């Protein structure tokens, strides 16, 4: 293994528009760069890696990425806890190069970083928690197709696309800039597969009866919505025929006593549902207003108080969350149920995504 040595950078022209000052400030390290496996081994020793092969972030690759990406490296995108360090475009690019992300994805990655650094998302809590939560990114707008972000078959995982490298970039940034280290600054008991390369998918807007998710949240066009996902759950329904039936099926499936949102210590939370395009057409026909869709899912994603074990039920009662109908609702209001259309045309399944708790979703435009 090559021993790392610090040296002074020698390339002096840089920046997306060409400049005479070296904008790059990261510590230069001399090491093996022409063998991915050797570099990956070195990077793992430095605690930079995730176990998958890493591309060496050479000065040349970083400058080339910046030139295509069209951003200046010293631009501050956000501060990521628990390290509370500044996440600049330069750090994003270095990690994106390592992850194998395309330079054209830089604006999307920057928007996603901006979203996870939004205080409402509580990335600090998310980074440290015993839970298995990971930022899930839903992409809206033409950029979906420009970057090949999947929104049809296998969009939550398994579809071959650059979404994997984009999501992996976010995860590397959480490790290398945010300082998320398992057993040190992160107490996740189990983790989840999305913690390897993130979860990045698009909305199948063209098959949705409703306005795109980001547009409904006030950001039309190219945008990302990040959501704290505890994992994904399958919702199978081979019996329903109408919109209200499908929505009842989805809502009932989401409600189970161990969901984080039912914890008395979780003051509020959201839930998310991906509806396949076949069901979306039926639901849109019968329930054309998205707010009514949210209302129906919300109404059914609730449990009677006696569905909880006594100790838990007692604490829920203390919090005042039992409604007049004797039920406890997964989210405070129907507006807290995020719905979008995605998935293959084989129908049969919806995807439920429970949230970790009080990390609230954030939507940002892609600049």
């Amino acid at each position, binding site marked *: 293994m090559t021993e790392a040595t610090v040296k002074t950078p020698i390339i002096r022209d840089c920046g997306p528009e060409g400049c005479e000052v070296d904008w790059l400030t990261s510590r230069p390290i001399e090491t093996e760069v022409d063998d991915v496996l050797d570099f990956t081994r070195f990077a793992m020793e430095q605690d930079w890696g995730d176990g998958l092969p890493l591309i060496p972030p050479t000065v040349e690759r970083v400058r080339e990425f910046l030139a295509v990406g069209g951003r200046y490296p010293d631009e501050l995108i956000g501060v990521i806890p628990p390290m509370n360090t500044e996440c600049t475009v330069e750090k994003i690019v270095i990690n994106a190069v390592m992850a194998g992300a395309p330079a054209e994805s830089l604006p999307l990655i920057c928007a996603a970083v901006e979203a996870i650094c939004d205080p409402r998302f509580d990335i600090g809590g998310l980074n440290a928690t015993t839970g298995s939560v990971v930022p899930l990114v839903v992409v809206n707008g033409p950029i979906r197709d420009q970057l090949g972000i999947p929104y049809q078959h296998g969009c939550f995982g398994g579809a071959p696309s650059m979404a994997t490298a984009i999501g992996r970039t976010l995860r590397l940034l959480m490790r290398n800039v945010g300082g998320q280290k398992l057993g*040190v600054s992160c107490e996740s008991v189990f983790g989840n597969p999305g913690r390897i390369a993130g979860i990045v998918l698009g909305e199948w807007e063209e098959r949705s009866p409703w306005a795109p998710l980001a547009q409904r949240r006030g950001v039309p066009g190219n945008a990302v919505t990040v959501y704290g996902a505890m994992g994904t759950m399958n919702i199978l329904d081979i019996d329903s025929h109408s919109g209200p039936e499908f929505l009842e099926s989805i809502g009932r499936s989401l409600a189970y006593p161990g969901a984080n949102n039912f914890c008395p210590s979780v003051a509020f939370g959201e839930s998310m549902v991906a509806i396949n395009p076949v069901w979306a057409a039926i639901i849109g026909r019968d329930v054309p207003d998205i707010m009514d869709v949210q209302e129906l899912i919300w109404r059914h994603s609730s449990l009677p108080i006696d569905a909880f074990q006594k100790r838990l039920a007692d604490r829920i009662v203390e919090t005042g969350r039992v409604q007049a109908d004797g039920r406890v609702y997964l989210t405070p209001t129907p507006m807290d149920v995020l719905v979008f259309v995605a998935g293959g045309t084989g129908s049969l399944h919806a995807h439920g995504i429970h949230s970790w708790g009080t990390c609230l979703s954030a939507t940002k435009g892609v600049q």
Partner: protein
Amino acid sequence: MALGTILDPTAVRADDITHPGPDLGDLRGKTIGFRVDIMWRSWDWISALWAKELEAAGAKVVFWRAGGRTGDEGARMAEGLKDFVGQIDAAIVGLGNCGSCTGWTIHDALAAAARGVPTIAICTQNFEELGHTLARRGGRSGLRLHILPHPLNEREQADVEGVGREHYLPMMAAFGAHHTAAQEAAE
């Protein structure tokens, strides 16, 4: 094999305060603030027990309960924290008994310490390293931590209160307290 120059993908916070901050000192006439939460009944039991000891030693005790930290409630909590640390002479902040709640425990302890008041954060053993790591990454590695056993919240109330009694004096010693009534009685 070819050598080349790569760029460090990490970012490191350089500033750090290694000093633990002022000692608690004499308790008499001081307002001691307990930061509690909406998660840990065990911390409610222990902080209530410790509050009685502090009052017996001549201190005034106030409580502030942290809730949701995002959205509108988060904004209210930020204001509440500001008010809380503004009215106390010392802070006992807990409970770090999970990942995110250790994060917010340390966050709130750092807010009190930044104001210059004697501060101690309370974590359970499993989250001790996380507490120190987050304090360091928050720029104050010297932050005082007192460690309670783990698991704690899974125990019955009488058992937890026993832990609280056992840990009161060690916690006060770590906090730099002088002449508590309990100490005098023990002496």
